[in-house]
């Protein structure tokens, strides 16, 4: 078995008296798509925020290829090779689509700039299906296109690990199919993805393994089929049978 790309151990974060993430341990191996599931408020997004450095952990460690990330500021973690999208889509509103992607190209570990970046930005826009929209302002994009753009910006960083935070949420059935195809094509490229997701279709068809959280703790792990049949997972989502 190959060594994990990402290993998270005993990760803990408190907000006042609330323990949002409580001793979570997980790993992601290179080339895997791993799902992070759980009811609302179970701490999934907080885990992503702790890995990407948006928040600092109170305890625990985060390692990418054996390098400790938990003490680094977010911009250094990004340069180490962790890219992310956001739960509420965040595109750069005063810029064109191309400039948004260049923002992802210019500041990473393998910084690209000038004509090289223009070219790479165009290729990435083609990649996510926005080929014709390079010079369009992001404010004119539809919701799905904003999500595509956010993904292109994350891919521009040539990440070793891609964190997707409910990237497939809020899409209509047609868009969802396209979205799932797009993520599947990333796996074909050999990308490693940790995704927070609620859409069960997406989880079943995309994830190699899943972790399920409830109230800040990890309650199950395994293949999507196994964890979704786990009585404790069902209880977390739906409550007790006699409730």
């Amino acid at each position, binding site marked *: 078995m190959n060594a994990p790309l990402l290993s998270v151990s005993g990760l803990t974060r408190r907000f006042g008296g609330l323990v949002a993430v409580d001793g979570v341990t997980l790993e992601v191996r290179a080339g895997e798509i791993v799902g992070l599931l759980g009811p609302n408020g179970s701490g999934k997004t907080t885990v992503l925020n702790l890995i*990407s*450095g*948006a928040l600092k952990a109170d305890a625990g460690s985060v390692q990418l290829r054996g390098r400790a990330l938990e003490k680094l*500021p*977010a*911009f*250094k973690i*990004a*340069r180490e090779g962790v*890219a*992310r999208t*956001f739960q509420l889509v*965040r595109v*750069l*509103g*005063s*810029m064109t689509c191309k*400039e948004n992607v*260049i*923002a*992802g190209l*210019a*500041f*990473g*570990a393998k*910084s690209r*700039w000038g004509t090289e970046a223009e070219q790479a930005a165009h290729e990435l826009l083609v990649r996510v299906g926005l080929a014709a929209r390079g010079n369009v302002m992001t404010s004119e994009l539809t919701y799905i296109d904003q999500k595509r753009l956010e993904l292109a*910006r994350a891919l521009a*960083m040539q990440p070793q690990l891609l964190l997707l935070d409910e990237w497939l949420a809020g899409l209509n059935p047609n868009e969802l199919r396209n979205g799932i195809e797009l993520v599947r094509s990333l796996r074909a490229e050999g990308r490693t993805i940790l995704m927070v997701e609620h859409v069960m279709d997406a989880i079943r068809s995309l994830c190699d393994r899943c972790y399920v959280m409830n109230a800040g703790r990890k309650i199950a792990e395994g293949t999507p089929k196994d964890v979704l049949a786990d009585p404790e997972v069902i209880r977390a989502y739906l409550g007790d049978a006699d409730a």
Partner: protein
Amino acid sequence: MSIRNSAFSAAMIALIVLLAFVPLVTNGYQLSLAINIMSYMVLATAWTLFSGPTRYVSLATVAFFGIGAYTVAVLGEELSWPLVLAIAFSIGFALSLIVGLSTLRLSGVYFVIFTFGLAELVRQLVTWYEVNVTRTLGRYIFIDVTHAQIYWQLLALAVIVFISGWLIQRSKLGLALRVIGDDEAVARHVGINTTLAKVVLFAFSASFMTLAGAIMAPRWTYIDPAIAFNPVVSFQVLIMALLGGVHRLYGPVFGVIPLVILFEVLLAKFPNHFSIMVGIAFLLIVYAIPRGIVGLVEGMQFSLHKAKGAKA
């Protein structure tokens, strides 16, 4: 493209040469108005250099401007003029680094309040020093420099500010600042050292303001902290930049010229009601043209363009 670029460069050089002749064809009053315009041009453009892309509204303009003036008041007669300017620039740069590192973690209204407080703090410190140590509140500045020379120095500084701004806009630093202005969280997650980018640019912007204060100082002959650190200056620079439009480097130009003239008229006609008039001007500008004159013109062009497209 390159023909357009060289035509643009030629037009800019012609404009600068033309502006350089202003002191030779104007009378004393007109030249003093031109100096005012040029001084605010530097301040408002330097302000926009930082606050335009990052959208961090600074009210510390006069703190740096006043420090420049005081550097001249203290050292102006002791040292050669270029050395005085170099020292003023260095002091402005050093102070703005300290201020930047300690405040640029703040955002939104907290940053605004802090910068306003900073300007007042500097004024109070200088006042305290003058009262308790030198025991005289005011200082005289006797430096042999003509108004034309002041004007030319300001023009040169304005050119330097514009060229720096143009170079920064085309650089990665320029893009980094725009990303920060749009969404600071995104900026961090694409690998931008947001603190460094902001502090560096804040320092450059502030150093230019300090230089403007140093160049302007000999014009006053007498300064005290209330003159050099007059908070109205910070607000005026802000209104001028907003009126012109802060999303383009040349935007403030279109705010500086009408407002310097307006303030001049207000000061002459309504000396007792000047502050309230400035306040009303501020309100009108923010309500009527929130994106500034440049934004207004661009918006009109855009909708004209759209209307044409719809017809065709």
